């Protein structure tokens, strides 16, 4: 087998893994859009906020400590505890539920029946608010996030592929974990939306708010639940990305990676987010490998959008999106 083909196989596998990480972010968008028709611009910032909250809780950091110290001339920073990762994750998830409730109570409850563009603008406002709020609450320094996930080259894959191809493939242990978690998450979300009472209520609300209300579905509860789920997905994405780079402002920019995934997979399909993520991940990595060196490299950011646009030409609703038919 030629050397280039072996390299391409390694790139392909890494593209799949990167695609899973993109899909994790895209999932949060899909959940909210599916249930409420809102394109949640704040999803990336929610990942940052969730991860910062997790680090803060685990390290026992006093929230708003800079503000408190400046106002009251005190010098408090820590509660003095260090929580294990699981407890931290559970508390951070609970905090995201609280955030979901607040978002619903103070923002979207007042915007029921408004045009989608108004709701979208509200999420832009929410994104900027959360950015500042996160800085104020937990500080803007880079935070190391360690919840015990393995990182670095998987030695078993390296050795196994070396025996076959005379070249060991690099696969990051963190990417393998992310793939397993994403698979479990998608499976659980599909089961939830198809087979539980709450999931069916979520789908009913997505189909028609008024009709759902008329049969006694509590719209507020469903929306809080959906924002909570999106918050939990944001927490998972924040953990995966934050483990790689530390928790910092740039985490909020991972939303940019999810947009082409959504365009390709469709805004309303959970499996679509996964398949879209995989196609984008593999496509951009293979393009960078094959064409990148000829055009000066750094093609991934723009190529993902080009790939999504090509799909849009042939299938505007995305691969798995619902076809919109409007009759005159």
């Amino acid at each position, binding site marked *: 087998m030629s050397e280039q083909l072996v390299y391409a196989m*390694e790139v392909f596998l890494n593209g799949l893994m990167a695609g899973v990480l993109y899909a994790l972010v895209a999932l949060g968008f899909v959940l909210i859009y599916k249930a409420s028709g809102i394109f949640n611009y704040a999803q990336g910032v929610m990942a940052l906020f969730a991860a910062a909250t997790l680090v803060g809780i685990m390290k026992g950091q006093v929230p708003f400590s800079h503000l408190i110290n400046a106002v009251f001339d005190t010098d408090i920073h820590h509660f003095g505890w260090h929580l294990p990762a699981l407890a931290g994750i559970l508390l951070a998830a609970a905090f995201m539920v609280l955030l979901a409730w607040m978002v619903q109570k103070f923002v979207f409850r007042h915007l029921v029946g408004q045009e989608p563009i108004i709701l979208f603008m509200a999420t832009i406002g929410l994104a900027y608010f959360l950015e500042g709020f996160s800085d104020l609450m937990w500080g803007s*320094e880079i935070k190391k996030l360690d919840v015990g996930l393995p990182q670095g*080259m998987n030695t078993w894959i390296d050795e196994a592929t070396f025996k076959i191809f005379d070249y060991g493939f690099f696969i990051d242990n963190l990417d393998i974990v992310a793939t397993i978690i994403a698979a479990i998450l998608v499976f659980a979300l599909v089961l939830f939306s198809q087979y539980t009472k709450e999931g069916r209520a979520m789908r009913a609300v997505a189909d028609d708010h008024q009709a759902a209300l008329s049969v006694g579905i509590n719209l507020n509860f469903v929306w809080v639940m959906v924002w909570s789920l999106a918050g939990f997905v944001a927490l998972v994405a924040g953990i995966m990305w934050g483990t*790689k780079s530390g928790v910092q402002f740039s985490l909020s920019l991972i939303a940019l990676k999810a947009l082409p995934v959504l365009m390709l997979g469709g805004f309303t399909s959970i499996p679509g987010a996964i398949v879209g993520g995989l196609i984008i991940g593999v496509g951009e990595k293979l393009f960078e490998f094959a064409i990148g060196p000829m055009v000066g490299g750094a093609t991934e950011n723009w190529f993902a959008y080009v790939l999504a646009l090509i799909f849009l030409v042939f299938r505007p609703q995305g691969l798995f999106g619902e076809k919109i038919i409007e009759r005159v």
Partner: protein
Amino acid sequence: MKKTLATMALAATMVAGPVMADLVFPSLSYRTGPYAAGGIPFADGYADYFTLLNERDGGIGGVKAKLLECETGYNTEKGVECYEATKGEGALVYQPLSTGITYQLIPKTTADDIPMHTMGYGRTSAANGAVFSHTFNYPANYWNGASIGINHLLEINGGDIKGKKVALVYHNSAYGKEPIRTLEELSKKHGYELNLVPVDHPGQEQKSQWLQIRRDKPDYVIMYGWGVMNQVAIQEAANIRFPMENFIGIWWSGAEHDVLSAGDKANGYKAITFHGVGRDFPVFDDIKTHVVDKGLAAGAGDQVGNVLYNRGLYAAMLAAEAAKTAQGIHGTADITASMMRDGMEALEINEEKMTALGMPNFGPSFKVSCMNHGGPGLGGMTQWDAAAQKWNLISDFGPSDMEVIQPLIDADSAAYAKENSLEAGCK
């Protein structure tokens, strides 16, 4: 009533005598956005040094220093807005802390007769003061940094790096591309093979780049990164088991927050510097006594001694020394921006002065002149000790290869002069 108040105000002014205006130092900072982790310690160091001068010495030459901080978010448009908003406040010198903002401000500051100091960043050829009359980039620039990196490789290879493979991992922006020409010229001279590996903003995902490095197996990697790109690159290098001692970052890729998230795996990573690291300098005792303990620190006081805090402090010290020089030249403590420019052009920093300021061996000795706004281009090498969680200076401040760099500066500045119909020359 109005007349009475006016009379009282006039009388009060006469009793107080002539009041000196503050010496205004704008700080175009970024405490928010994707690069805040780097912007905050620099801004804190810059602010704290002026606070120290005010509290300990009563200002500069008896006149208080006033800091005007304006948030740019590392955004070029906002940076220009900050400049326009603050230049009328008596601004003496600008430190844009962004290459993009620097490029926009070069013609503006020249027209407004306000000097600009771009220490270790900005337009490298601004070192030619005959063309860039109001831009200064002493004591070192990007091209010096590239050469210092290669000099280090020469040093650890017994002076011969012929046939070695060097990869440049760079932020795919004007900043990141700056060293390419210098490294290409140096590769012709020393016979190493240069591979270019660009990383798009923000650099959160670099799998392709590090797979390429793993395949190409370079002997050394030099990085020109900023923000999250640094942390991800160091983590990815650790993941592919690239030897950290062969991984060298420019000074914008060598702060504590760049290496801490990779933990022990970052041990041995190197970074070029043009100033001292750590807090083992007397000036930090003064900062503690006169600034932090009095509750006057710009931030929470937790950045003191960090690499980028030290850089901000160093920039402020150079600005203050230039202001003192300007006061001496013009015989007045109440200097203008134009006078400040003269002070910067006549600035001399030597070890005696640095020791007196509580910063012995903190940076190189140098003299600025009209022909040389870039200083000597000296730099040293630091290395990260993950166990102790600190940077150590592992070399002296050595020279860069001006034989290669000077012709590049001359060519680029001449092209700028031609494009802008400028007549180069010193007054």
